[in-house]
């Protein structure tokens, strides 16, 4: 197995108006980072593509619903937990996904349907939602930031069997205005996506 550390950036140029961060809620047994949040200082346009697997996890259903009802407008955050996929968890799982969205909205002082939610990890187990909502409350506020370390931490918070955090950023210019683009991803196994 190769050393992948060369793919982890040591700096970046990140877009204005976003704060990010991660913390360990205790959902992962190793006490590793397992909750990440990205928050925009102003409501943003949003879009998403989702798995076409017939068994769609609760956060997929919740995020699709939020994008559909808002038209992708006035979205202020993305919240992601790792360690538990909240998939095949029935009505209770869907309620947990909306609880994550509502908690982020409340802590950020925005609407109750102003965030997108994602989960990754083991299928078929309910979230430890109390740990996650406590984590959201703790994370929103001074723990979010816009430094390279914050972005790297946010990327680490969504890892499962990944061996390195996947974070990229770039600047580009249009009509004399400089814009930035930053992104992160996770995934190492169960990877053959066909999203729509």
């Amino acid at each position, binding site marked *: *197995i*190769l050393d*992948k550390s060369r793919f982890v950036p040591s700096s970046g140029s990140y*877009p*204005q*108006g*976003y704060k990010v961060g991660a913390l360990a809620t205790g959902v992962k047994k190793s006490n590793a980072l397992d909750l990440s949040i*990205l928050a*925009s*200082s*102003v*409501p*943003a*346009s*949003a*879009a*998403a*593509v989702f*798995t076409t*697997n017939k068994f*769609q*996890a609760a*956060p*997929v259903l919740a*995020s699709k619903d939020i994008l559909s009802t808002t*038209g*992708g407008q006035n*979205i202020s955050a*993305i919240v992601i937990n790792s360690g538990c*996929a909240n*998939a*095949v968890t029935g009505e209770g799982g869907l309620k947990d996904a909306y609880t994550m969205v509502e908690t982020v909205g409340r802590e950020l002082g925005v609407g109750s349907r102003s965030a997108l939610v*994602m*989960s*990754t990890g*083991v299928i078929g187990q309910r979230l430890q939602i109390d740990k996650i909502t406590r984590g959201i409350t703790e994370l929103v506020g001074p723990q979010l930031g816009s430094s390279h370390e914050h972005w790297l931490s946010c990327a680490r918070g969504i890892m499962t069997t990944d*061996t390195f955090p*996947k974070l*990229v950023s*770039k600047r*580009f210019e*249009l*009509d004399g*205005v400089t*814009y*930035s*683009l*930053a*992104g*992160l*991803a*996770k*995934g190492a*196994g*169960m*990877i*053959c*996506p066909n*999203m*729509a």
Partner: protein
Amino acid sequence: TLLGFFVTDAPIAAPALQKMLKHATDRSFNCISVDTDMSTNDTIAALANGVAGGELITETHRNYDAIQAEITAFAKQLAQLVVRDGEGATKFITLKIQDALSYEDAKTVAHSIANSSLFKTAMYGKDANWGRILCATGYAGVEVNPAKTSVSFIPASGPALQLLVNGEPETVDEARASEILDQEDIEVHVNLGTGGGHDCEFWTCDMSHEYVTINGDYRT
């Protein structure tokens, strides 16, 4: 599971952002495979908050194509990192399928090769096994011209190693093949010779013993 998001401070209207994301995903995250399995949770999201200022980018704005190109290139970069971290992967493989009747046909062939366990284990074993590539091409279910199909490995430097030209096997320089397959990054070109002129790029990795160990140990 694949999860990710990208965010920008450019002002992009939601319908335009959705269209850009779909375009970018179809050429990046939907063109990767580590192990053939599709998750229940795969999601890629995008936010555009407009804090940097400038004109609102809509689907008809003159800069729509430029920003879509930026986002697509960016998405490819992220998607490729996921493949590089494939469980147990020791190789990063770029498949270029050329001269298909349509983009969809080219992608179907790439998908078939990328998901062939025998191709993936051959790459792990550093074996220039074009027969496995050809086999996966042939059962992909799309139009190919067997008498015009060519397969080659493209090294980082130096000439291509041609394995099959117009359906006829070449004499393979095993030493050169070993040299190419010893590299971490491998590029495979498959020309279907249909005259359609449509190409597709797809990224995958090899399959190693470690993949089995990781997933044999993973517990629900």
